[in-house]
């Protein structure tokens, strides 16, 4: 009987563990109250890879099939140990053909740069989607990531 009671409590404890595990961290998600016929959702990842290397991953999802979709502008800022932000680099889709994809519903791209270990960085993307009916653009700011 004692063995059965212990078994019941063990099962309950396991189930409780599963529930708490499923209530995982929800990352930063913003709602942009600017309805769009062309842009559905977009995201930017900024993460340190080590040895001073920083990595940017970007996605842009269209509402339907797009003739052109991607990133118009990538604006990278750096924060020095004194706490001030300044422009680190700016890249444009016009100069970087890999910032766009064609005749697709979504775009996935990436970019790497070398930062200064100890400084912090953030990225602002201007995203873009276009089809035969028109186009739209949107903006997203990344998390602030340390360079390691």
């Amino acid at each position, binding site marked *: 009987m004692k063995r059965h009671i212990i078994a019941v409590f063990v099962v*309950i404890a396991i189930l409780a563990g599963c529930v708490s595990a499923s209530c995982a961290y929800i*990352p930063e998600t913003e709602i942009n109250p600017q309805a769009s016929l062309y*842009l*559905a959702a977009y995201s930017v990842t900024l993460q340190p890879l080590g040895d001073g290397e920083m990595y940017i991953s970007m*996605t842009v999802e269209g*509402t339907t099939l797009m003739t052109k979709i991607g990133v118009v502008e990538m604006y990278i800022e750096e924060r020095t140990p004194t706490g001030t932000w300044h422009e680190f680099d700016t890249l444009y889709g016009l100069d970087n053909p890999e910032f766009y994809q064609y005749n*697709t519903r979504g775009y996935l791209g990436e970019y790497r740069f070398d930062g200064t270990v100890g400084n912090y960085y953030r990225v602002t993307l201007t995203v873009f989607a276009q089809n035969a009916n028109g186009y739209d653009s949107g903006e997203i700011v*990344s998390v602030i990531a340390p360079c390691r």
Partner: protein
Amino acid sequence: MSEQDLLKFNPEDGKEDIQKTDKELMDEIIFLLENSSAEELDTAAIQAKLSVLDERDPAAEKFDPEKGWEAFITAHPFEAKAEAKTDSAEAQPVRRKKCIVTVLRVFEVAVVLAAALVLFSSASGQSPVQTFTKWTADLFSVAANPGGELELPEDSDSEYLSLREALDENGAQDALCPTWIPEGFALDEVEVKNNSLYKLFIATYSENGVEITVSISSQSQEWIANMLETTEDTYIEQPVNGDTYYVLANVEYAMAFCTKNGYAYNIRCESSKEDLFLIIDSLYR
């Protein structure tokens, strides 16, 4: 020896009996018993034959049943124990005890199921009764609606015939995937995009120009920022199976967004919000 001779006792027969085999003696005893009436039965003859048999094998008379039983238990412990229980006077209490154990086991299972229901329902912000009712309603709703085509035909030129196949073949086996779309809808295409670290899967289903899009992207939850376009600045946080779905609307569709275990799920449904919720439910089936 004739049958008549057998039926008549002769003291001299004792000498002959000694020369007979055990089987012959037994046959004669049986013959006498079967062919003699109660009055005619020659007990002296039978006794004489039994005495001969007894002289040859006295162990039979000296057999001690208790010693034999102990030897049997030693040789066959489990069978002997079972026999003892069945035959013993305690058989009835043992059956009653078994019955009580069965009832306790059923009770244990009921307690575990009830605890699981309470835990999961509280995690999703609903009462256990609501959760159970919703679960059964959804189960019958989906079962009653066979749903649309989640796969492309076998002769399709597409690299992947289904979203599930695309996920499985690109290292995203652990990602959730819809198992139901509304009846009449069919898969148009599955797009898969990769960069060095992440993947993006987009499946589009349609019916007469009305689209349902399911996009799944792998993400680093620590370093990601997501943006969703919507008509209004309000949205619903809908808990489903312990996960939070942001449900909102853009110009032409209802959208649900959720992140779970390193994946972001974005489901856009132009047909109806009810279809959107059924598709979300199907992720967990």
